[in-house]
C-alpha cells in the first residue's frame, strides 16, 4: 500500500517537474526541473526493483543536466538577474501538437489490452530486462556502443577548428604542439 502511494506520488512529481521545465523562466531552473523529473522516474524504477537501471537513470540525468546547464548558460549568456528565458518556441503550433501527442500516448497506455501476469517475476529483474531487450543480439549491441563512441570522437576531430598542421607545423616536425591553451602534461 505504502509502495503504491509512493509510486503514484513520484509519478505526480515527475509530471509536475516536467511541466515546470516549460513554465520557469531560467535555464538553471529548467535544467534542474528536468533533472528532478528524471530523479523521480529513477526512484520509481527502484520501486520496481530495477535497482541498477534506477540508480543509473539518476546518475546519468543529474550529470547530463549539469552539463546542459553549462552549455545553455555559456551560449545564452544567462545569469539569475535576467530571467527572461522561455522553453516554449512557436507555441501556437507546438502546444496543440504536444497536447495531442500526450493524449494519444496516454490513451494508448490506458486502453491497450495489457496482458495479465503469468508466473512470478524472476529473481533478478534487471538481468531479465536486459535479456528481454537484447537477447541473442547482446554482442551486436555492445559492438554498436563502441562504434557510437568512435563516431563521436571522429565527429569532434572533424569539427575541431585546429588541425594537426596548426599544432605541429606544416611538416609535422614541431616537437611540442603550439596550443593556445596549455595542458598539464607538458606538451
Amino acid at each position: 500500500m505504502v509502495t503504491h502511494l509512493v509510486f503514484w506520488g513520484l509519478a505526480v512529481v515527475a509530471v509536475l517537474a516536467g511541466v515546470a521545465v516549460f513554465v520557469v523562466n531560467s535555464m538553471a531552473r529548467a535544467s534542474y526541473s528536468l533533472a528532478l523529473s528524471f530523479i523521480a522516474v529513477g526512484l520509481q524504477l527502484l520501486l520496481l526493483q530495477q535497482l541498477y537501471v534506477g540508480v543509473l537513470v539518476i546518475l546519468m540525468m543529474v550529470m547530463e543536466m549539469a552539463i546542459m546547464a553549462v552549455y545553455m548558460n555559456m551560449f545564452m549568456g544567462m545569469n539569475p538577474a535576467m530571467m527572461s528565458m522561455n522553453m516554449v518556441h512557436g507555441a501556437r503550433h507546438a502546444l496543440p501538437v504536444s497536447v495531442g501527442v500526450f493524449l494519444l500516448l496516454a490513451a494508448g497506455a490506458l486502453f491497450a489490452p495489457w496482458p495479465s501476469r503469468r508466473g512470478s517475476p524472476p529473481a533478478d529483474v534487471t538481468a531479465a530486462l536486459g535479456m528481454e531487450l537484447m537477447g541473442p543480439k547482446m554482442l551486436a549491441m555492445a559492438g554498436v556502443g563502441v562504434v557510437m563512441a568512435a563516431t563521436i570522437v571522429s565527429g569532434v576531430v572533424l569539427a575541431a577548428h585546429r588541425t594537426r598542421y596548426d599544432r605541429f607545423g606544416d611538416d609535422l616536425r614541431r616537437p611540442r604542439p603550439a596550443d593556445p591553451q596549455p595542458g598539464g602534461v607538458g606538451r
Partner: protein
Amino acid sequence: MADLPAVVSGGWAPVAAGLLGALAVAAALLDGALAGRAAGVRSGMGQPAGEVARLLRQRRRTTVAADRLLWRIGGAGLLGMALMIVTVVPLGRWTLFDLGVGVVWVNALDVLAWAFVWLTGWGANSAYALVGGYRFLAHGLAYELPLMFALVAPAVAASSLRVGEVAAAQQGLWFVVWMPVAFVVYCLGVVAIAVWGPFSPALGRDVAGGVTAELSGVDRLLFLAGRYALLAAGAAFAVPMFLGGGAGPLLPAWAWVLVKAAVLLAGLVWLRRRVPALRPDVFMEVGWLVLLPAVLLQDLLVAVVVIGG
C-alpha cells in the same frame, strides 16, 4: 568468505549520522590545528568552534535577484549527499541499507556534487560565485570519469556491486595493495567532490572565495560542514572498497572501520597544505591523458586477474 553484514533497522540512522558528524568535526579540528601550526598560533583547534559560533549568529547576506531556491538547495545538498553515502557503508557487521548496487549508488551520489556546487555558485547571482561554479565543473569533467573507473576495479574484483560483498572479498589481501592506482584516483575523486585541497580553485581567493563568495551565516556553515562531511563519507566508503572493511586484529570489526576511516580522513585533511592547487584548465589534460588511461589499465589488470585466477 566472511559473513556479510546484517541490515539493522532504520532507527540506527541517527547513529550513523552521528558517527559521520563526529568524523567531520574531527576533520575540522585537525584542519584548524594544522592551520594554526602553519600560522604559528599555539592552539588552532579552537578556530573551527569559533567559526561555527560566528556563522550561527551572522546575519544572512542578500544579493540582488538571487535565485534563492536553487542557492539554498545547492548549499545544503553536500551534507545530504554525505549522509546518503554512509547509508551503504557497512560498519563491521552492520549496515543500514544493503543495496545490491551500492557501488553505483555512491557513484550516483558523487555526481550530485556537480549539481550542488554549481547551483551554489549560480544562485547568488554574483559573477565570482559563478566563476567558481564553472571552475568546479571544469574539474568535474576531468575527475569524474577516472573516479567512475576507479570504482569499477573493486567491483570487478569482487564480482559484485554490493558494498558488503566487496568488503568480504578482501579476506587476506586488501584491494589497496593490488589496485593502488584505483585507490589513489578514488581518493583524488573524494578530495574533488569535497572541493578540498588541490581542487579548491572553485573556492579560490583569487575569485573572492568563488562559490562561497556570497555565502554567509547558516548557509555558509552548511556548505562548509558539507565539505567536511563529504571528505569523511568518502574516507568511510574507501574502507569497504579498498581497505579490507572491518578486517584487523584485536579490535572488533566496527572499530577497525572507524579507525581506518579516521586515518584516511586525517591523510586527506593533511593533504590540503601539501599539494598545490590544480588549475582546472591544466588538470583537464592530466585527467584525460594520465588518470583515465592509468585507471583503465588498472581495470584491465584486475579483470585479467579475476578471469585468470
